[in-house]
Each structure stands twice: as C-alpha cells, then as structure tokens.
C-alpha cells in the first residue's frame, strides 16, 4: 500500500524507516517502531487558528496524528474537560490543581477511546476486516464498541479475573470475547503469537505504533485547555507505560511547532503497590524493569511486564519527576475522595492517580502553587465492585412525611458518624 503522508514508521534505536504497514518491531534490531513526522511540512498545517476551527473532539489535532489521507472520523472521541479542582486542592493546600477527565471520554468512558480511534483508522486503510486486542478491560470495551461502529469483526482477549462490568461492556457490542486463565502478561504474550499467525489488526500488537499516537491527544488538549501553555507537572497512571511517554511527546511536538512556549514539565508516574514494576525501578534508580506478578484491585493497571516501562522510566527521570505507588485501601479512599470533593467517579486507575498525587504533595515533590494536572483515565461505573460494603445498605421507608421525618432524626447521628469516618481516612 502506498499513500502520501507526512509520517512513517521508524525504528527508535537504529533509525531505519519502515514506511507505513501493520508492524511494530524493527526486524533488524527488534526495537519498537514509532511514528515519526515531517515537522517542517506540518508547521504550516498546524496552527492555533486551524485547531480552533476544528471539531470539539480529538480530530481537531488530526494533522499531528498518523491518519490515512482524507480519513473521515465516525466518532467524536476525546476533547474531554480539563477541570479546576479547587475543593480537592484545598484538602492538599494546592492552589493550581487540574483534572483531565477522561472518565467521560466517548464512546466507552476511558482514554482508550483515543488510541483505538487512530488504530481502527489504520486498520481500515491496511485492509483488515477483523480487529483484536489483549486488554485489562478498558481497551476491550473501546475496541468492541468502535469495531461495531466501524463495521469490523472483533476478537478480544482478557485475563480471566476481569471485573463483570468490563466483560458485559465488551460482549454487548457483539465482540468475540476470549477469557484466558492467566495474567494480562500471559494474555499479551499469547496475542503476540496469535498476531504472528492471523491476518488481524491487533490494535496493541501490529498496529501499536499508530495506536499509541492517539494518546498524544491528552497532551495536546491539556496544553490548549490551559490557554496554550504547558503545566509544571502531570501525574499519569502507568500500566504498560505508554501514556506518560506520549503526553511527553505531545508537549515536545507543540514546542517544536511553536504552539507553546518551551518550558520544563515534570512527569510523575502512578502505580498500584501490588503491581509497581515502573515505580519500583524509578525509586531504586534502575533503568530496566524487573517484572512482577500483579496483585491489586487496580486491574486496568495490572501489567507486571510493561512493554514501555524502559521509556517511561527515562521520561520520568529526564524530566526531574518521580514515581509513586499506593495500596489497595488507599486506592479506594482516593476514589471516594475525588467523588466527594469534585463530583467525579473514577475507576481504580483514577484512585491510583489521586492517591499518588496526594503522596507527591506530601513529599514536596509537587509544590502547592505549581500548575499540576492529574490524568483521570477511566470511569468508576466499571469498577463498582471495589466499593462493595463501603456504604450502609438503606432500608426502604414507607412513602409518608412522618416516616421521613422520623428517618431523618434517627439518621442524623449515624450520618455524622459516617462523615467523620470518611474525613478521617482521607485527611492529609
């Protein structure tokens, strides 16, 4: 296939160009392929004015995404709100705290909608009729939904212990769901072998270089929504480690294209302690990953052998940032804290981000007056199981005013008690 584009696949290590094809590793040196762009050609096509005239979705940044020529998007993914978090900030003494809220990304309520949108654009161009993925849940939902919308068949491979909401939220779209008795890392390895044998568009295997570029739109949006400037810090949850590296790439590209003033940004990575190969490496000063066997309620982040771990460590280290991790109880507390202070119900990964940010403020690695963005990447309605037992079961009362008043009197004491309890666990 030949088409004229401003981008092509290039090996990160040896620099060899591979054109555009469904391929993710350099056959010469086995290193990952990445999409590289002709920035000189893009400089004219990509200006603040042109972006402002674009649609209110990630497609306003199409010029900086690897899309087939004349690609016509069928879904308005991305361009989620960047919210000032005054009430959460007050808890931590932080005056310039922001939330990038991908809990409301469309169509499936996680940031994965961005990467899948780009991958499926290329899947069509490469002539695949079937798309597939290995997933910890959110990617499964997004591939299944967008495959349905785009008319692809889809095969989804997941670890056997995934949350019920994420399983139903995949099957409902007519996807073929394959549960594997094993961890995500085992699912992922199996998918590499399957991708080797079948002519399918695996979004995170043979389409991965294109797919990963979709994550850049989180970075573009943060900069545009801050009034075309870069923040001082971003806090990003890490599973495979790709998102944090792609937000960094987005900021670098905006500087390269003169859309923002150059400025150092610190990158902070967040993991669950029960699966923390990247934060463990950062804390020990290692440049390589020591793989782990995950054990955490943050299943969407439970990747023990993160493919982009090496690059995530580099991105964090070079920026002067840091990585932290939080326990399962801290994750649940943080989900509740975010919901109660800002009205955002995030999934476990968001709890990880909020919990780690709290630690980073406490450690003075993030200072109160610095502009700091927390990336909330998924929606709490998909992981309600972790809140089971956290709230008293309410008995139904008769539909009478007197009954309600009696209920109020009886409830005030216990309500006060509940509030006290929550405040205690989230106090900083």
């Amino acid at each position, binding site marked *: 296939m030949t088409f004229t584009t401003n981008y092509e696949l290039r090996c990160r290590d040896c620099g060899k160009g591979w054109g555009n094809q469904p391929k*993710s590793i350099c056959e010469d*040196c*086995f290193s990952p392929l990445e999409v590289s762009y002709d920035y000189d050609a893009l400089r004219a096509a990509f200006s603040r004015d042109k972006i402002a005239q674009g649609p209110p979705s990630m497609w306003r940044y199409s010029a900086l995404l690897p899309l087939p020529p004349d690609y016509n998007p069928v879904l308005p993914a991305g361009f989620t709100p960047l919210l000032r978090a005054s009430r959460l900030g007050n808890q931590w003494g932080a005056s310039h705290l922001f939330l990038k809220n991908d809990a409301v990304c469309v169509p499936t309520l996680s940031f994965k909608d961005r990467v899948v949108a780009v991958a499926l654009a290329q899947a069509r161009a490469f002539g695949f009729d079937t798309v597939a993925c290995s997933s910890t849940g959110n990617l499964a939902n997004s591939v299944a939904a967008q495959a349905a919308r785009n008319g692809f068949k889809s095969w989804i491979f997941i670890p056997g212990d995934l949350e019920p909401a994420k399983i139903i939220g995949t099957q409902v779209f007519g996807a073929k769901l394959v549960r594997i008795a094993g961890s995500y890392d085992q699912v992922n390895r199996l998918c590499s072998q399957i991708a080797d044998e079948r002519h399918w568009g695996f979004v995170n295997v043979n389409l991965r270089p294109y797919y990963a570029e979709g994550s850049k739109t989180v970075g573009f949006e943060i900069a545009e929504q801050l009034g075309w400037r870069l923040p001082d810090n971003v806090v990003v949850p890490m599973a495979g480690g790709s998102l944090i590296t792609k937000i960094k790439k987005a900021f670098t590209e905006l500087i390269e294209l003169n859309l923002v003033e150059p400025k150092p940004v610190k990158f902070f990575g967040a993991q669950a302690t029960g699966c923390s190969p990247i934060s463990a490496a950062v804390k020990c000063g290692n440049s390589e990953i020591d793989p782990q066997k995950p054990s955490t309620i943050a299943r969407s982040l439970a990747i023990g*052998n993160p493919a982009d771990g090496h690059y995530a460590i580099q991105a964090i280290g070079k920026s002067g940032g840091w990585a932290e991790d939080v326990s399962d109880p801290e994750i649940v507390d943080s989900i509740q804290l975010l919901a109660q202070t800002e009205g955002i119900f995030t999934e476990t990964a968001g709890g990880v981000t909020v919990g780690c940010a709290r630690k980073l403020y406490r450690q003075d690695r993030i200072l109160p007056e610095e502009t700091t963005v927390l990336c909330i990447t998924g929606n709490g309605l998909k992981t309600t199981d972790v809140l089971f037992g956290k709230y008293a079961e309410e008995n139904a009362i008769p539909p009478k005013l007197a009954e309600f008043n009696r209920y109020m009197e009886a409830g005030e004491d216990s309500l006060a008690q509940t509030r006290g309890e929550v405040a205690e666990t989230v106090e900083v």
Partner: protein
Amino acid sequence: MTITVQIPTALRRHTAGIDRITCTAANLTEMLSTLDHKFPDLKPHLRDEAGQLRRFLNVYVNEEDIRFLGGYSYVFQEGDEVLLVPSIAGGK
C-alpha cells in the same frame, strides 16, 4: 537437556524460514550460543553490541517468563519449550 526453541516470524528471514529447532542446552547462555552457531545471521538480532540479549526480546519457558525462573541461572529441564517473543512497545 533437549529443548525446543520457537522462532517468531519477525526473525525467520534470518533462519531460512525455520520456525522451530530442537537442540541441547543447559541454560540460556548455552541456548543463545547454539542459536549463534546454527544461524550466524540471527546473532546481531538476538544480542546487542555488548553481547547481551536484546532488551525487547522476551524469553518464555513453557509459557513462563524466564526472569521469574531465575533468568540466566535457570537450568533447562528435558523437553522445555522455549518461546522467543518480541516485547511490543511503542513509546518514546
């Protein structure tokens, strides 16, 4: 010990299309030496300039990552099935 090594598609152009070999090796170091000897073209694709196994190449023994089994110190058992699988990264 006699083991079987599966070669992924991406590397088969350096093995004249051969997708699996049976060989004798006591450990990972010996297995890599055997592969070097059998397929001289393959060597630079398996090892970096320092002679180490390339960062993005994962080795599995009977479906388990060899790093969980002790890595270079793991002693192969008779009949072990070894998989070479590229790690699919895409970041920068």
